[in-house]
């Protein structure tokens, strides 16, 4: 068939498809069939050595249609609910080994340093400079009028911004460091464990328990777990490179990447919750300590139960 006749015959279909693809949402139920027909036309045009311009035009059309046809599902309506109820806790339990390892890498240094600093009031200076220690001490001094960073409720909003930027940044870096064969994640987990443990031990030893623990107990349930999860996700990436199993290292990395991104989404969500709590709840000095402890305890229980049991029904 001569090219001209071919074009005359099929151009209406191509134009129809082109205009349809220009719209955001195609509604034509014929779309899959038309897509395959145009694929066929492209193959014919190539085979019959029609002009490169025609082949290019058809090729561009096929690529556009291919993208539309195979686009990933981007519906958002109930996906977030599905994510919270099933996907996230299931992903955490599927990767329980990494989560437990990350938990150990975080809590052991925390405990060691906590006990160490409690017994030796000089030890904290091995991990933190003196000015920083002093600012911690003044922040949680029970004799001071305000606890937390020096603040009144007007600064809550500013602190919310600070917690978002700082804590989620730390979590992202803990995750990303994992691709270096897990080393980066391990480093950040141990480092965070050491510094948090040293502060806790030092302040306990100074007798500032009535300010420090009520402050951290509430948001800690979300913040500390989220950091551990990010570390676990990062180590999973690194492990895929170290022990790829039957896959190539590259494929193993990609499979791990797809799985860990679920955990990253979830941890980010938890850190946003933590930032809210830390800025607007933990900082309020007006509430009695008992209330803070009981709410904090409830939050810890909630988080634990959620990750142990959510999504079991599926």
């Amino acid at each position, binding site marked *: 068939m001569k090219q001209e006749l071919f074009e005359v015959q099929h151009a209406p279909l191509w134009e129809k498809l082109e205009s349809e693809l220009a719209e955001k949402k195609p509604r034509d139920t014929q779309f899959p069939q038309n897509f395959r027909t145009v694929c066929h036309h492209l193959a014919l045009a190539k085979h019959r050595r029609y002009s490169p*311009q025609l082949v*290019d035009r058809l090729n561009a059309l*096929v690529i556009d249609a291919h*993208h539309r046809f195979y*686009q990933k599902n981007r519906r958002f309506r109930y996906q977030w609910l599905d994510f919270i109820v099933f996907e996230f806790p299931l992903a955490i339990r599927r990767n329980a080994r990494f989560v437990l390892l990350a938990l150990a890498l975080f809590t052991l240094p925390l405990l060691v340093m906590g006990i160490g600093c409690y017994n030796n009031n000089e030890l904290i200076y091995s991990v933190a400079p003196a000015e920083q220690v002093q600012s911690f001490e003044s922040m949680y001094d029970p004799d001071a009028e305000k606890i937390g960073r020096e603040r009144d409720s007007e600064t809550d909003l*500013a602190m919310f*911004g600070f917690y978002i*930027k700082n804590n989620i940044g730390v979590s992202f870096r803990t995750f990303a460091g994992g691709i270096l064969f897990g080393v*980066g994640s391990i480093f950040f987990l141990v480092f965070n464990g050491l510094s948090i443990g040293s502060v806790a031990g030092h302040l306990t030893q100074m007798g500032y328990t009535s300010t420090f623990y009520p402050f951290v107990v509430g948001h800690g349930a979300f913040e500390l777990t989220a950091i551990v999860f990010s570390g676990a996700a990062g180590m999973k990436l690194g492990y895929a490179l170290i022990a790829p199993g039957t896959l190539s290292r590259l494929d193993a990395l*990609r499979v791990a990447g797809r799985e860990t991104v679920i955990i990253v989404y979830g941890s980010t969500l938890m850190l946003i919750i933590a930032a809210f709590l830390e800025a607007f709840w933990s900082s309020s000095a007006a509430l009695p300590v008992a209330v803070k402890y009981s709410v904090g305890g409830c939050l810890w229980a909630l988080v634990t139960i959620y990750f142990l049991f959510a999504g079991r029904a599926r």
Partner: protein
Amino acid sequence: MIQDKLDTGYLVETPEAIELSARLAGPVPRVLAYAMDFTIRTIVLLVIGLTFAFWGNTGIAVILLISFFIEWLYPVVFEVLRNGQTPGKKALGLAVVNDDLTPVTWSTSLVRNLLRAADFLPVGYAFGLVCMISNSRFQRLGDLAAGSLVIYRQAADKRAADLPDVPSQTPPLILNLEDQVAFTGFAQRHKQLSESRKEELATILEPLTQKSGGAAVRYVQGVGAWLLGRRQ
């Protein structure tokens, strides 16, 4: 052999047995695109910083939140919502795609951009650059984990618009690709060749076309124009 290694073409076969092709972008345009994005981000941050600096604590909150978004999510939002192109990539004609050449999704884009933090190490994107030049698809660490590629977005061919003003001619027989290129090239380069040279070239076909001089030029240009899509 060496040509295979130097070739930046990338082919994917779809379920319809159609080959999609793309051209991979190397480190140099990508670094330039990054530099451009970096400049844009810095300027936006400066402007926002100066605007909200006098708003007290609310201002500080806004600055911190926006700087968080710009630091981590600026490329993600652009890549997913703007067809794989941040402003810097757009300026250089680059785009991010999944390695099956479909548009990037939120997850792909998020993974490749979060892992920037690892590519950055130990300083100035050193790991990322070394990784990029040591694999054949120019993927940095983030691209490897996300399964993404940076390709050249092909611009529409504009040369076709500038053709000599001649009636188009249906080719007398089916031409192979090489011959088609010769005809279209002749038509497209009508402004670069002198009249006598055009006549000289077109007259070579006289045994086939029975035309010479100006008539032969118009005929050959007409065939070229037809091949380029003109029908009149």
